[in-house]
């Protein structure tokens, strides 16, 4: 018989504790995984009160990322959302500055230099182009299938806007 406190018993005790520690670790990992999920498609997030895009007019799939704390992330369009489709209409965007951020119905679409040609489903959209230290450009855009719409957004620091 081995005396209490012998190395063999200590080994057993350590072995018994290990599963407890492992389960704690797993629980913590599970907690982290909540809120770090990734989903696609029209999704308003678990809280249902996001301040963006409540109109249901999103032209394509946008991705909601819940990496961000508080209200979660903001909706944005997934790559390929503006690809050509015969049932869509084209919005040809030219912006100054070229790296201005483009929002469609409040959802981030990308930078203007990467969105020179956007194909959207027929409908009405709120287009916003904004850049740091510049006046934002807003325009209501109507898209019809097979039609091309040219928009020039010049963001001036003095508040000048121009549309062609």
């Amino acid at each position, binding site marked *: 018989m081995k005396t209490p406190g012998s190395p063999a018993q200590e080994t057993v005790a350590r072995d018994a504790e290990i599963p407890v520690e492992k389960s704690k670790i797993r629980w913590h990992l599970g907690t982290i995984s909540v809120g770090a999920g990734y989903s696609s498609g029209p999704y308003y997030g678990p809280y249902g009160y996001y301040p963006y895009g409540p109109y249901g007019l999103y032209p394509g799939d946008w991705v909601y990322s819940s990496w961000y704390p508080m209200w979660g992330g*903001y909706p944005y369009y997934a790559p390929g959302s503006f690809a050509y489709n*015969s*049932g869509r209409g084209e919005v040809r965007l030219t912006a100054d500055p070229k790296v201005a951020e483009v929002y469609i119905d*409040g959802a981030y679409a990308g930078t203007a230099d990467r969105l020179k040609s956007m194909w959207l489903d027929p*409908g009405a959209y709120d287009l916003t182009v904004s850049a740091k230290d510049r006046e*934002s450009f*807003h325009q209501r855009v*109507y898209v019809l*299938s097979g039609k091309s719409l040219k928009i020039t957004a010049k963001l001036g620091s003095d508040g000048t806007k121009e549309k062609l």
Partner: protein
Amino acid sequence: MSGRTWGTAVVVCCVALAVAGSKGTVPRATVERYTIRTLRDGIGVGVVLLSSEQVRKTFVSDVDRCCVVAEIALYPAKDKALEVSLNDFALRMGGTETATKPASAKLVAMSLQRKAGSGRDITVSPTVGVGYESAGYDPITGGRTSGGVTRSAGVMVGVGGRGPKAGSTDKDRAAMEIELSEKGLPEGSATAPVSGYVYFPMVPRKKGTALQMEYVLNGNKVVLNLPQ
């Protein structure tokens, strides 16, 4: 998310809500700014008749295919509300009994969708071919054939296209209705100046025929002569 991004997002959201709630166009500062105007009982009426070119620039929808478009501005009398109704307007061909009432955005959109879908895409392409045939045996008759240059000519006829026609789908109709409605003259009680586009279905008329805009104001008919 950074504070700046949040700020941008909030601004975008506010603007989107503001735009979604607006209707019509922005009236000019005063009714005197309109070339065609009248002032009765303190109520101002200004009219601009849009040319086909102006209509094409102003609208994504092909409204010029079905309608005469006029921008109408109404300036209510001071401290008095004005009831705006499309039924109070009519477009008359000068010196005739022919007049049309404005059409609703829904009706115009349906008409445009029907017109867009009614046309047929027919492509006719001529084909011409020149080749060389070597001598050999005819596989059918078994006789010997002589070689030489061959020529062929024909016409290819293609009907229809690969995708839907522009403005012909139900989504297009809905989009056109939204556009026409949002840019249209807002109806209802107005205490401040309002303006917007009014769509009159096109009536066949001779070139150069003068048009008159009629507006029933407090039971009295006001007539504005429009340029040809």
